[in-house]
């Protein structure tokens, strides 16, 4: 079985993240860029199946030159190879253009199963996996808390806003996983050394056969909200609960 795992490079959530005031795009040139934690979990789900069956695991990313770091990390964790889609015209891609390009890469390489994170920690769209499935014309089972992969199918429990849904799909299919799915492994020393010898293919848009162009999402204004500032702070000397009740009452909250 061939499993493609989608891994995205994102700004470290521990740092200050900011938007370009003109384009509304995330500033990706400053601050530390890391592999999205949710995609490490997606990779872990694939690697656990590989450990049991010898499936082939390919890490795929779309991003600027430096995004190759997330492929290196994926290879060190245990992926067999990587594909890096890099093309200047992809800068500032919206959801529609991102999904179309990633679907193009997946179609080019062939797959049985695509595993993605349910939601990236920067864009937080939570829609790319379903969009890719629509481009590819295959089923998708997203937001899976648990995943069971079989030779011809995939199943799991999907966590929705309202409850749970048990779903399954025949392969080829696209799934996305939640942070409940798996704890990612750390790359071993051997893994890190071995990663250097594993193949990474770099491709550009002209290598792909793409669906017709979607309408773009255009940003026309961006404003920074003033941060919530601090108010009263009391140290409990036995009556802080009462003081807090008074504060709530004064503000008509009780």
């Amino acid at each position, binding site marked *: 079985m061939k499993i493609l795992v989608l891994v995205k490079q994102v700004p470290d959530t521990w740092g200050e993240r900011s938007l370009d005031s003109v384009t509304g795009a995330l500033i990706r040139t400053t601050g530390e860029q890391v592999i999205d934690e949710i995609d490490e979990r997606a990779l872990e789900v694939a690697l656990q199946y590989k450990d049991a069956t010898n499936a082939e695991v390919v890490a795929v990313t779309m991003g600027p030159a430096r995004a190759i770091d997330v492929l290196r990390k994926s290879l060190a964790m245990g992926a067999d190879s990587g594909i890096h889609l890099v093309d200047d015209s992809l800068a500032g891609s919206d959801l529609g253009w991102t999904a179309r390009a990633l679907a193009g890469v997946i179609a080019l390489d062939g797959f049985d199963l695509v595993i993605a994170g349910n939601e990236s920690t920067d864009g937080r769209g939570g829609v790319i996996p379903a969009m890719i*499935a629509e481009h590819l014309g295959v089923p998708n089972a997203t937001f899976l808390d648990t995943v069971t992969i079989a030779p011809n199918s995939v199943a799991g429990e999907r966590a929705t*806003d309202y409850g749970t849904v048990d779903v399954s799909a025949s392969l080829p299919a696209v799934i996305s996983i939640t942070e409940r799915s798996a704890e990612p492994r750390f790359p071993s020393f051997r893994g890190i050394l071995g990663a250097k010898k594993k193949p990474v293919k770099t491709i550009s848009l002209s290598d792909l056969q793409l669906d017709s162009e979607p309408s773009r999402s255009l940003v026309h204004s961006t404003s920074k909200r003033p941060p919530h500032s601090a108010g009263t*702070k009391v140290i409990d000397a036995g009556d802080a609960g009462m003081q807090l009740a008074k*504060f709530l009452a004064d503000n008509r909250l009780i």
Partner: protein
Amino acid sequence: MVIMTTALALIELTPTGAIRPSARMLLAAAARLGDPVAVVVAAPHKSEGLLAELGSLGAARVVVATSNTDGLLLAHEVEALVAAANAGPITAILAANSVEGREVAARVAVRLRAALAVDIVDITLEAGSVVATHSVLGGAYLVQSTAESGPLVATIRLGAIGDRAAAATPEVMEVAIDVDTSRFAVVNAAADAVFEAGRRDLRGASRVVSGGRGIGSQENFALVEQLADALGAAVGASRAAVDAGYIAQSAQVGQTGVTVTPDLYVALGISGAIQHRAGMQTAKTIVVINKDANAPLFDIADFGVVGDVFTVVPQLIEAIRERSR
């Protein structure tokens, strides 16, 4: 004949066929953008009960999609919206920013080659074009966007839009849809989470009380619930509290959990990591109780108490009860 421009709203139903609360917000938003059309997937004999309610929420027309295939994940919702979109001029297709709503919107946008705006907090029609407002990076920025061409497909954050469309008497249109079964996953079982009596849903809640690792155990978490009950609030948690098993993951507030914008947010034993703040910093009033005076969450607290939750909270609950007597 005048061709009216319409805006489509995808109505979510519970597994037993009742209309979910998101319908009010979606129809209110659709009414700003055109004639509001409710699109709902239901068996014909079940749809009658729904019509009156959708009319009271402002639907000018209800498109009821029926099909002879069953048990496919969101397939009918996708095909029904695509069919309704192709039937006449539309300005927008709106869905709730729930897991289901996003997924349907994702597939519909690709099918129609339309622009997609997710998790928006407001939507208006300005000089004939649909403008969506996004609250991003934990609410630190507001971004407005439009579609380059064609209708905008958008998912609206639950609870973000407060108004209600004027009631209408909807005309009904039934459409039969064909589904390519090979393109969709199969639903084997579905169940709504059961809320304990009196518990409130976190999304869209106007008050939230959250507990963190500082609460210490699953048993102690009852204290968070007691304060929530006293305040009429929903219960939330930090990821550390969820990871420690004090409460279900659905209660997680933050970067990778729920984003809330309540009038009141009370944090008990939560340090205030940047990922937690991303889910709650746009609350109107923030109250923090933490025994560490240097906890970063105090930086955004309207009222902070440096103290032990196990002494402060019981006293607070008692004081609230006193005042309501």
